[in-house]
């Protein structure tokens, strides 16, 4: 089972190899009757950016959802000593209300800062201020994606970001912003685990975790 352990004892600002905040040991995950992830082990410490690669159906999304506690593990252990922020395939935005209302509601249910300035800063991080007050249903795919990613700016510094295809549908400028934000987050002692086919945080030295996909 995922252990959402929010202990903040081992917080460090500099990357350290000894201090692993995310442990995955011998993890196996079943989807339906298919073993999608088999005996996967992975370590990540504060300041690490890790790209999760692999062909379609290799279990990238499954792994992220399992770490987020949304899927049960069939075997093995996951422990994460950091708050988890998950941006999945679906953006988690309601089409009926505005991006600003969506973001403020999300901040409130997580107990993050909901001051006017905090929300404004988060919205401007992905240059969404111009369309943040429109109902989300009128926005394009990429604009919704940017609103979903604007959450990252509100997250605690030591959190683990689980990003599922974060730059799918993003324009080049927004992809660069994402690279930038991810690196700043890592520098501040956070962790990023991103499933992606595209270049991500290319300027950094991202570690990578490759899922080969099962040959059956």
């Amino acid at each position, binding site marked *: 089972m995922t252990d959402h352990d929010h202990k903040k004892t081992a917080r460090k600002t500099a990357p350290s190899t000894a201090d692993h905040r995310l442990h995955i040991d011998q993890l196996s995950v079943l989807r339906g009757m298919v073993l999608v992830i088999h005996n996967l082990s992975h370590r990540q410490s504060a300041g690490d950016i890790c790209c999760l690669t692999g062909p379609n159906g290799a279990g990238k999304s499954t792994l992220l*959802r399992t770490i987020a506690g*949304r899927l049960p593990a069939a075997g093995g252990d996951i422990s994460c000593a950091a708050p988890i922020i998950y941006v*999945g*395939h*679906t953006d988690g935005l309601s089409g*009926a209300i505005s991006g600003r209302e969506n973001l403020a509601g999300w901040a409130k249910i*997580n107990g993050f800062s909901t001051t006017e300035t905090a929300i404004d800063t988060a919205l401007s991080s992905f240059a969404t201020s111009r369309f943040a007050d429109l109902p989300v249903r009128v926005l394009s795919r990429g604009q919704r994606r940017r609103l979903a990613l604007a959450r990252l700016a509100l997250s605690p510094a030591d959190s683990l970001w689980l990003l599922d295809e974060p730059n799918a549908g993003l324009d080049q400028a927004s992809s660069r912003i994402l690279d930038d934000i991810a690196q700043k987050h890592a520098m501040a002692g956070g962790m990023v685990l991103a499933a992606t086919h595209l270049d991500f945080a290319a300027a950094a030295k991202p570690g990578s975790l490759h899922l080969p996909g099962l040959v059956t």
Partner: protein
Amino acid sequence: MKPFFAQIERDLLIAWQNRQDLGVVLVFFVIIIALFPLAIGANAPVLDPLGVPVIWIAALLAILAGFDRLFAQDVRDGWLDQIALSQLGLGWYALAKAISHWITAGLPLLIMTPLMAMMLNIPLQQWPPLLVALLIGSMELTLLGVIGAALAEGARRGTALMALLILPLAVPLLIFGTLASQSDRGIISPHLMLLGAVFALLLALAPLVAASALEIGETETGL
């Protein structure tokens, strides 16, 4: 408590943006009630004893009709993933959903009830027990509906499945509710107390049942 109220606030905001949906439940309620005198004929001796049961059955159907997609939108939007990771948790989320749904569907119905009571010629001294019983009854039906919607979430033909699951469970409410509404011993009748006891039970159990149903539904059929 702040995340809890934030969820209610969010649901009410969304409901306000989709407010034409609220009218549907209300119109449904009025039409069911209006159909009875039309079918039976304006034969007062037959209609009189039917007034209270007709209001109860209409309330039951109207409240449950509004339920089919209670969680579906949040699941599709990915909001449920965010809830599961947040401080709120699925149990409080289900309770918040019940409260916001009652405010948007149960409360307007209750406000409409005196008008319906007048239309069905229910004597004035029966209004207080009817309204009090219907107040508790509508909250109970909402909690039952939350269980049903959570269980049927993700299933094909979810609406039909939900009706099959919930309508049998609503039978005790209907029995206690109609008896309490027709009490000739004032508002606080034994039947109202039984209705209250069922409410206490549902209030404690429904969020837990709904939360585990949502959890299982997600892991078995998820994306």
